[in-house]
């Protein structure tokens, strides 16, 4: 699978990442190389195989709906890069 500059841009946007020209070139090359390598899986016939979607053998772990400990407000905001008294602060969303 050849990753081109255009698809790289689209994926980068989905991942909320940005690359400069040099970084984009290297990432395009690396991704193409790695995708070519993982495509080896196509050599296996898996038409009769169900995908494995969970690794834990625990199912339906139930518990009573009781109020437990949770982070208090101040602790929750402790690591905020920017905050006010009640909320996380972010740059303007609407122009």
């Amino acid at each position: 699978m050849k990753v081109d500059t255009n698809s790289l841009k689209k994926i980068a946007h989905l991942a909320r990442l940005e690359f400069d020209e040099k970084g984009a070139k290297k990432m395009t090359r690396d991704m193409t190389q790695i995708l070519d390598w993982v495509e080896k899986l196509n050599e296996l016939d898996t038409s009769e195989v169900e995908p494995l979607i969970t690794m834990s053998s625990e199912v339906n772990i139930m518990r009573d709906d009781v109020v437990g400990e949770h982070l208090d407000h101040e602790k929750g905001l402790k690591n905020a890069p920017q905050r006010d008294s009640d909320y996380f602060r972010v740059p303007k969303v609407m122009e």
Partner: protein
Amino acid sequence: MEKFRSFDEIKKSLENKETDCRAIVNHYLKNIETKAHLNAFVEVYGPSALQQAATIDEKLEKGTAGKLAGMVLGIKDVLCQEGKIANASSKILEGFESQFTATAVQRLIDEDAIIIGRLNCDEFGMGSSNENSVHGKVLNGIDETRVPGGSSGGSAVAVQANLCTVSLGTDTGGSVRQPAAFNGVIGIKPTYSRVSRFGLIAYASSFDTIGVFSNNVKDNALVLEIMAGPDDYDSTSSRKPVPAYSDLLHFDKPAKVAYLRETVQGEALQPEIKQRTLNVLEKLKNEGHVVEEVNFPLLEFVLPTYYILTTAEASSNLSRFDGVKYGYRSPNAHNLESMYKLSRSEGFGEEVKRRIMLGTFVLSASYYDAYFTKAQKVRRLIKEFTEDLLTKFDYIVLPTTPSTAFKFGEHSNDPVAMYLEDLFTVQASVSGVPAISIPNGKDGKGLPIGLQIMANSFKEAELYAFANYLTRSGLNE
């Protein structure tokens, strides 16, 4: 003070009043200072460790101390401790101070283990050489021009260089076993879901496990039995009872051992490692155990499966690092979207970005079935093959790594070459089964070789007993 070779020696020394916990902590603090250039620790909790030691000394005096009194632990920088910084070796978690403690770590503290500091690793556990760390690289204590392995490189070096009694690492595709092999120590990856992942900064949630490094099997078994077991904060954690592994180390029955033809025949395998592995198998046969060669035709599909699934899970897990709630926020942003993009682009290292990009790609609508679903199907084939083999045999024995510790920069320009370092460790991770790496002699350059043993899910007791038998009887020398 002489080097303690085991926790049993520490306990004996405490019982005989030859030492106390403060002296033990001071002993390790001095070693950490002497070996500071190895860069294994990113933060040392000198004062708080000494304070904890004083409290435990009082408990010992009163006879109320826990099972791990006197044990000094180092913790990989991906495990959270309340009130302490955790970075996952990433700039994006700059300054993050955890509000809670990982369940596994809390259980050790509750038994009076002393946490002496946090240990360097690859960023978010992504790497096989500890070269991807915002804290800088860790040096291999045996040959400082070489990598310690990764991602839990600091944890392996800390135990090898006697900077703590035991250390915790995490293993997603070999991140405990490979550095254990490169440093000549013991490292276990338990069964998936055996130990709660609560408080472990996630990389790939259907693979991540917390593992243990030690100088001997018994210490390793003791720490795992205390960490393991169900946890209300991790609904995937297994409810199966946890045996007292450290009391079950006796081994006296003939074992059925399989080895995989493809793992010893591969061209990429260093000849000395091949020889050492075959020597152990030969000795086992001579001791009356059943040793059989089996084919593992899926070997070459294991790494591609692993990389599709782990990058997908990583891209999802690492979406939480957005510059809003904690960690690094770019000062250059002018609106919300550029805050996300710049914080993430400036905060993540190159390997992490590569994996997020790959994961985003394989999960994108047009490619989801061709890559992600396909890999989930192949995972089932690999898991079923491995479990089936482990019902016919007690153990699978194979090399831990294709080569001994390599030089810094050797694989830096070729991601796939670096990924191939995990060729022999990912099978257990993809299948969820436990695996342990024990020392298996040295190569011509004096670098340690690792021997890996896998057992079926939740057979940690059997795994430890067999590893104990091999190391005790010197079959691995």
